[in-house]
């Protein structure tokens, strides 16, 4: 199975640890996990507001596959994708959703306050735009400490409505900080369309450029294309720190918060036919077709990968479902001022 490789190997050098198998596995891990959450959510045992990322996995996977030890990732309310793609485990995520002591935030955070600190430092925050400034701060520390790491800020299109974004872009540009701003443009803020949120002739990339931040727009559904785009950007950014914005089109398949499809629960803005159009651009399917069509893997090998990932996710999910709950005496753990 060594016939695979990155099309950009020469660009990214030895920092990249993952290969296409790992990238496909990461993509599948997210998809299977999110769908398993949706399936189990109705049991009322995951008592935390979930914002599922099904359909948007391609961006998290392709960006995070480019990261190196010491980099950091900051995410938002729709955070499961980034948590998993950046190295967080299915077990720790699901345990968190079940309110377990073994959860990634010991059951204190819930779906929107995830954290891990493996090779990459990761946190997600719930208030729009907050975490973008955190990424800029992390990048400021990288620059002050003369480390060639990158801070990634994932945010949705609605974050552009928050002032903190503009303050952050401005500061990152002034100090030339190594921040990769990744806008996941799924076109909806909860259910609000751009008609109430943005003038038609106002482009996010133009806004970034007006602050002196380089900006690129792309399709978030093709993992290989996004991977290459990010790889090229990061090579330049690590050499000589500066910020870049990448805006990627994507679509969340399920409702804003909760396990359902909008059309199943009587919401009208996002129709079933719109969903079906986007499902034709399923990032998992697109990558799968590339990997088989360009002979990276045989059909059998792909199915083996899929079977193993599903088995692994199921095993971790089940284990997390039965993980330990916190002792009630631990209410004040980490609560005080010290």
């Amino acid at each position, binding site marked *: 199975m060594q016939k695979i490789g990155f099309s950009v190997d020469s660009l990214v050098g030895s920092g990249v640890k993952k290969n296409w198998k790992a990238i496909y596995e990461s993509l599948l891990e997210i998809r299977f996990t999110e769908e398993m959450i949706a399936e189990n959510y109705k049991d009322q045992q995951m008592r935390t507001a979930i914002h599922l990322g099904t359909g948007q996995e391609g961006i998290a996977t392709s960006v995070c596959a480019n990261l190196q030890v010491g980099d950091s990732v900051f995410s938002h309310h729709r955070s499961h994708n980034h948590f998993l793609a950046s190295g967080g485990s299915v077990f720790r995520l699901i345990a968190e959703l079940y309110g377990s002591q073994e959860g990634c935030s*010991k059951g*204190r955070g819930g779906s929107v*306050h995830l954290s891990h600190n493996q090779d990459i430092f990761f946190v997600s925050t719930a208030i729009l735009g907050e975490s973008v*400034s*955190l990424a800029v701060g992390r990048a400021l520390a990288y620059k002050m400490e003369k480390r060639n790491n990158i801070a990634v800020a994932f945010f949705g299109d609605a974050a552009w409505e928050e002032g903190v974004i503009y303050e952050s872009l401005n500061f990152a540009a002034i100090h030339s900080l190594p921040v990769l701003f990744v806008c996941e443009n799924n076109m909806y803020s909860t259910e609000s369309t751009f008609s109430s949120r943005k003038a038609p002739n106002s482009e996010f990339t133009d806004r970034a450029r007006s602050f002196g931040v380089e900006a690129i727009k792309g399709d978030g559904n093709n993992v290989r294309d996004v991977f290459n785009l990010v790889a090229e950007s990061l090579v330049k950014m690590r050499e000589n720190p500066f910020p870049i914005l990448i805006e990627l089109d994507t679509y969340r398949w399920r409702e804003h918060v909760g396990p359902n499809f909008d059309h199943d629960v009587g919401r009208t803005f996002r129709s079933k036919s719109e969903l079906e159009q986007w499902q034709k651009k399923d990032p998992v399917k697109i990558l799968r077709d590339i990997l088989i069509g360009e002979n990276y893997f045989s059909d059998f090998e792909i199915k083996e990968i899929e079977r193993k990932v599903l088995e692994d996710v199921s095993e971790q999910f089940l284990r997390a479902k039965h993980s330990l709950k916190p002792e009630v005496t631990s209410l004040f753990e980490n609560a005080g001022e010290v």
Partner: protein
Amino acid sequence: MRTLSYAQAISEALVIGMRENSKVFITGIGVDYPVGVFGTTKEAFDEFGRSRVFDSPSMENALTGICIGAASMEMRPVLVHHRNDFMFLAFDQMLNLAAKWRYMYGGNAGQVPIVVRGVIGRGWGQGATHSQSLQAPIAHFPGIAVVMPAMPADAKGLILSALKSKSPVVILEHRSLFDITGDVPEGYYETLIGKANVLRLGTDISVVCTSYMVIEAMRAAEFLSRFGISVEVVDIRSIRPIDESTIIKSVMKTGRLIVADTSWVQYGVASEVSALVAEKAFSFLKAPVERIGLPNSPAPSTKVLEEVFYPSANSLQKSITRVLGIPDITTALAPEIDNFKGPY
């Protein structure tokens, strides 16, 4: 011991803190100006330069987030606001993130011990949005410490303590204190966050007070001592965590309590301390508690109205005699000595 002004003590603390730890940096609007935030950041800038003492755009919200992000990587940011009123723009970051960080990530994302300095204005026409005192709204939230040094030695010790804290710490510095002088130990020392200080021992009544009201309370106590009234002055110093035992102990001794704060009485520190005493030392009280603070209006700008708006040693003196149930001492205290000549 040598004497320093409050501003010099802050400046010295920052310089010592930055020598101690190369990860300490200072930012905020104008921290690298020649005047250096009323003289408090100039020495740090002169010694460490712009790489560690740097100006920022007017962006209180994101800048606080940036400091939190940097602190998550073990940097020690000191963020300065010329007036604490500007912190309202940073409340999301301070209260939704910094205060909750250790807790809501289960301790798995480390700590973000940012130090936020904010200056409180008073009088001289500073008006409704440049003379508020934000200790109560901030200290309402668990996970973020709030300190209000009144004495130069505490200003230094609390800053050095804040730079070693695991929690974010907000330091509220009263503009009217910047020129006061006091004994300040040399070298490195820390003043424990969460510990009040009995500045003056007394037996008749406890005046528990914050920040600039400590100065007014000391003046009132000194004045009343001439009439045989013994006032104990407790400088709270730390709003959160609050030193319950020192306050309770003082009230158990004197049996009477006045709480004097730089902010509004309702829902404020004065109310919190009164409630504390009502809950834990009720049986020791010989008289009702009085709360001294701002009346229920925004701060006016005109001098005529300012004079009735701000509490002073005179209002404390009247309150003390009232609580003691003795006739008002008609001799008025000399007006406060306020060297502040504006504009901010």
